């Protein structure tokens, strides 16, 4: 158990460069996952109300799209 913690410490925390780089990479990943997660929740919460859900009802295939 303590070997795992030592490995984590030596890999990520011991050098400041590795620590900061890990933080930035984590921030990058966190932003993506946070965006995807909140967007997915928003779509789920408003399912059936958004234009992308209703579009098929109003725009038939072959209709020229009004701009």
């Amino acid at each position, binding site marked *: 158990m303590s070997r795992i*913690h030592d490995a984590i410490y030596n890999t990520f925390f011991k050098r400041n460069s590795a620590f900061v780089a890990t933080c930035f990479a984590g*921030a990058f990943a966190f*932003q993506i996952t946070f965006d995807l997660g909140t967007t997915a929740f928003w779509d789920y919460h408003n399912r059936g109300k958004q234009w992308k859900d209703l579009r098929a009802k109003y725009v038939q295939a072959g209709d020229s799209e009004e701009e």
Partner: protein
Amino acid sequence: MASSLSRVNLLPTTRTLASGVPLATKLNHAIPTGLAGGDHHGATGARSDVPKSWAFKSGVRGHLGKTNALPTSSSFQQRFISTSTPVSADTHHPMVGATGVRRTPATGVPDFSPYKAKNPGLNRTISYFMVGGLGVLGASGIKSTVSDILSNMAASADVLALAKIEVEMGAIPEGKNLIVKWRGKPVFIRHRTADEIDEANKVDVKHLRDPENDSDRVQRPEWLVMLGVCTHLGCVPIGEAGDYGGWFCPCHGSHYDISGRIRRGPAPLNLEIPEYQFNDDEEKIVIG
């Protein structure tokens, strides 16, 4: 007579309260100074827990000790003398189960060993993880703030929509110019003829002031789209004029050829090419 005694009964001298504190009135439980510190190993000088000399009647030669052991407990209890190994007192403390704190009876110092970290590596990992987690959240917050501010300063969609103009290609016959206004500046659009394209390609660009091939200046050879601002001082050149069959700036006499390249006069550069693309579906040139 003495041999007939098989059992010694002693009166109880103490009684233990529910809290574990021995009830012994007229007994001083105060520990002498320094005694709580341990065994004085390594300490230099006189022992600090020796009573001061003035506390004794030093003149007395002999010591007469007399102890009256009266029962201090109100209730009579039988007291046995046992030679078995005593169970250590700390495990018997009545508050051990409730608090988890064991008290060493001699000194009264609590035993904090239950609070000691069982795995120091886990503690260290958690501490650094918390610091790093704060860094992650802070970095993403700063990044979002900066990108929001920057996107706030960028042009919005309605401004971008106005920043583009569309010109119908069918409105310009071959060999004609059209001047449109785009972002406050004139834009020349020329529908070039095949002769003009040949003429623009024949020029040896190595001798030009701003050497540029005609193919680098147009997306389609028959359509020439340029900003109509003279690169000298910003006048608007006149089309189909000048010595080279292109544009001529009346302010200081710069001559541009049919590809908009500077050929003579004070202008340092060719006429600038804006960003544009062709919309073939609607036969339009979209500038911007």
